[in-house]
């Protein structure tokens, strides 16, 4: 590998010196940074976990996100582009973290959640800005992917998933542990027909909306060198071929998209009582190919090389964390002319960055979190960001305020796409704030948790692709956007003895994502397209012995379909029901589940005229040996 420990030590030392000179070294136990996740102080809400959402293996990882009020799940339909709009922001503002790396595409700024299932990954969402730690493309926080926790024993798990519109998944998972070595591997094969019923303007129709065939291979190998040191290697390979289906109003969207992603990760870590150090290397390779019928239209390829060193320590009773990161992207974008000639654009961007963050307890009730980051971009830019987050224990709860300066670099497509790319684009910059109060009320068998949050995000030079007449789409800095709102989250849990559990949750949000300044008065004061002002979620889970029942109800308000707010798609309310049964025989477990989506057979649209299934059923079985 040519890994130079002396050089690494120098980098860390430089990082620390830089951070100390900025005088931001405060710390608190609640701040921590691990190989797979980062948590900002008490900002985690909306956990996509088994308690409040379905756990049927094989479902798209994006599906549970439907049940978060702070994020709008923007999906063109099953197996089509699906992203998260967090607190009125665009999908490009939310980092997608895998082993700590942001795997959002540097080419188009998108991570398509429809491409991954929950077989090999869990996820949870952090809605607070992470720019001063994570850097670019995290203004609206991060969706953190993690490997499902494994037991310290060998296991083999085989599963199948089938739904009523012709979609089938098969998965296998293997866990082995011996002599300090540990391996966890999952493999998934997907064949989706997407032949479902939908409502076409009052008439129930059934069409084949395009197949998806995919394989997904994910493996982690780790070795415990001694009680303090650990090494880990991870690889994630995906190959997805899918048809981009037509809408209700069109028949010519017969495009095919082939995605191929290879992600690798190598990590060494050291951990003792007070100190944790880790270094890691990553390589992300992605390829997206578009075909219209059988004609090749465009190919995008990008290789991203990453390296990072992080240290966290405790000095004089305070803890802090700091990191240094280097990232380089090489991309080639090719589009085909009708005469088979090719227009190719090569682009490259490198970033070196230093960050430091810490929390200091000023008293037993008050603490302050400070952090800063500087990033040097290969085009000569130096970008400084910071965060300030004081919190105070008030009554039985915690009152927190967070202030983050944020930025967003244009993607390589924004800058260099052969037609419409705009090399003159400016960075998006802004300020994100959050004021929240959360508390927990307990009794011996019951718990009530709640959190109220006010949020605000101001952005200058909002980057947007707009149609420019015959010249087609073009990337522009056209907007000043102010997204603000309020969220309420409550969760109630009750346990009767050990085998009867009730968990019920409500999430409500109001989001006003407004264009405050634009080149045309037509857009000023208008809500951003497809951001719902109102969203509500009600989840209920009841378990008794080996059976559990989950019910999820979602309300999504009207969404405007254009920047001028001239037209909108109607609000909708959906209910999903899922029943699980677990059968145990010695060490063997069999999980069975039946899920009904869209229980009331509601006709609705997430994106205008894109068909979504009416009532449908999913059956899943998972055998663990």
């Amino acid at each position, binding site marked *: 590998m040519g890994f130079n420990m002396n050089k690494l030590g120098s980098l860390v030392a430089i990082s620390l010196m830089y951070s100390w000179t900025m005088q931001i070294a405060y710390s608190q136990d609640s701040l921590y940074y691990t190989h797979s996740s980062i948590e900002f102080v008490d900002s985690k809400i909306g956990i996509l976990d088994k308690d409040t959402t379905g756990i049927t293996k094989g479902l798209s990882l994006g599906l549970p996100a439907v049940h978060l009020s702070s994020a709008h799940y923007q999906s063109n339909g099953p197996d089509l582009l699906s992203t998260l709009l967090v607190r009125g922001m665009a999908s490009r503002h939310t980092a997608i973290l895998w082993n700590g790396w942001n795997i959002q595409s540097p080419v188009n700024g998108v991570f398509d959640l429809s491409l991954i299932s929950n077989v090999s990954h869990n996820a949870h969402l952090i809605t607070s800005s992470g720019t001063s730690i994570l850097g670019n493309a995290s203004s609206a926080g991060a969706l953190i992917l993690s490997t499902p926790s494994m037991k310290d024993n060998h296991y083999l798990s085989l599963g199948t998933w089938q739904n009523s519109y012709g979609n089938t998944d098969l998965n296998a998972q293997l866990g082995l542990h011996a002599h300090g070595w540990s391996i966890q591997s999952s493999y998934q094969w997907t064949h989706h027909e997407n032949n479902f019923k939908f409502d076409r303007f009052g008439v129930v129709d059934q069409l084949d909306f395009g197949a998806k065939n995919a394989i997904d291979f994910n493996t982690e190998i780790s070795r415990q060198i001694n009680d303090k040191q650990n090494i880990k290697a991870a690889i994630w390979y995906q190959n997805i071929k899918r048809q981009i289906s037509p809408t209700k109003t*069109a028949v010519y*969207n017969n495009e095919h998209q082939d995605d191929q992603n290879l992600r690798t990760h190598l990590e060494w870590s050291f951990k003792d009582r007070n100190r944790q150090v880790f270094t890691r290397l990553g390589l992300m390779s992605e390829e997206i190919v578009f075909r219209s*019928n059988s004609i090749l239209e465009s190919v995008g390829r990008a290789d991203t090389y990453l390296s990072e060193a992080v240290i966290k320590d405790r000095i004089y009773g305070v803890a802090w964390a700091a990191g240094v990161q280097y990232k380089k992207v090489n991309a080639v974008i090719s*589009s085909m002319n009708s005469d088979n000639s090719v227009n190719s654009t090569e682009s490259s961007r490198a970033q070196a960055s230093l960050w430091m963050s810490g929390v200091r307890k000023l008293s037993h009730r008050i603490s302050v979190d400070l952090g800063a980051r500087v990033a040097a971009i290969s085009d000569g830019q130096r970008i400084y960001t910071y965060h300030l987050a004081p919190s105070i224990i008030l009554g039985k709860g915690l009152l927190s305020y967070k202030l983050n300066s944020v930025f967003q670099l244009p993607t390589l497509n924004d800058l260099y796409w052969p037609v419409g790319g705009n090399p003159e684009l400016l960075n998006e910059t802004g300020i994100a704030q959050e004021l929240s109060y959360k508390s927990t009320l307990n009794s011996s068998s019951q718990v009530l948790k709640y959190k109220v949050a006010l949020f605000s995000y101001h952005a200058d030079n909002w980057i947007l692709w707009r149609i420019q007449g015959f010249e087609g789409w073009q990337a522009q800095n056209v907007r000043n956007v102010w997204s603000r709102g309020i969220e309420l989250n409550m969760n109630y849990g*009750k346990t009767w003895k050990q085998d009867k559990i009730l968990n019920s949750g409500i999430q409500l949000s109001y989001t006003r994502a407004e264009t405050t300044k634009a080149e045309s008065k037509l857009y000023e004061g208008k809500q951003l397209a497809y951001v719902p002002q109102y969203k509500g979620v009600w989840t209920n889970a009841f378990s008794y012995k080996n059976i559990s029942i989950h019910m999820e109800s979602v*309300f999504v308000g009207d969404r405007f379909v254009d920047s001028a707010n*001239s037209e909108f798609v109607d609000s909708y309310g959906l209910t999903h029901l899922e029943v699980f049964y677990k059968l145990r025989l010695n060490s063997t477990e069999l999980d069975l589940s039946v899920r009904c989506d869209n229980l009331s057979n509601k006709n609705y649209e997430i994106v205008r*005229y894109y068909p979504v299934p009416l009532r449908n059923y999913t059956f899943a079985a998972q055998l663990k040996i």
Partner: protein
Amino acid sequence: MKSYYLAFILLAVFLFSACGDDPIGDREDAAYVNGFFIVNEGPFNNGSGSISFVSNETEEVSQNVFSNANDGRVLGNILNSMSIIADKAYFVINNAAKIVVADAITLKFITEIVGIDQPRHMIALDNSKAYVSYWGADGLSGGIGVINLSNNELIKTIPLGKGPEKMIIKDNQLIVTLTGGYDRADEIVYVSTSTDEIISTQQVYDKPNSLSTDAAGNIWVLCGGFTDYYVPENSTQGRLVRLNIDDTIDAVTIPNGAKSWSINKDQTKAYYFDAVGVYEVDLSLQDINPVLVYTATSYYYGMSMDADNEVIFLTDAKDFSSPGEVIKISTSGELLATYAAGVIPSSCYAVD
């Protein structure tokens, strides 16, 4: 804690029982006469086209008139053009691969004509037969569809080539421009209206997009020129071509991007537009000499002419995702009125 739970459940039930559909009110049938329709393509990618109507008497604009007349039914993705033949209106919907047939007065839905990939424009030979230009699913294998108007069914297709667009009928011949579709082309094609077979092709210049005859029997073809968005230096200039009745050809060079050749009632003057404005051509002169009569104040997307009333409509698609506008000017370039339109207005169609 019981009170917490009770309050919790009550709040949830209240919040989630408040969601309902808006009632749809009753609507009366309207009569769409003495005015003009605005053909709105609708949003690209996933939208639906729509029809607006402007009354000549009241100057009032009614939006979404087809949907309003048909209980919310939508036309489909990218409404390319409309034609009225006898008592029926034909809406040619490109990306939905169909032609929606409706009553010409009330716009009540009648039927759909399917089986034509990427239809563009429709022209009637008489009250029993019409022709539809189409690009084909790949945008390269275009042709002409022959429609039986008595039952609104496709009789046959005539493969022509890349991007059949506007058509005229002259001397038992259907004359079709080939714009190139998703590629480039520079021809017009002559088809027999008796046999519905190709008679001949004639090369003109890049991207012939519209045409007409004049009072003397000459054929005029407006060629917009090829536009290469990737390599702009490969783009070509436009040409205004006159195919004289003595089989000679005259042509003048004009800037790239000219389109929408439209002729007045007595076929003595014609108009077209480009990014600069609207030009008038006196067809009676030997020299071809376009004269700018109206300087564009916006980026216009389409132009149509109401020959009976001697007025010209220019459509402004604005940002191509919000509702656009239509302006009405006189043939001398005087701005007469401005009307609100739907999303991406592309043409207008006047009715008595």
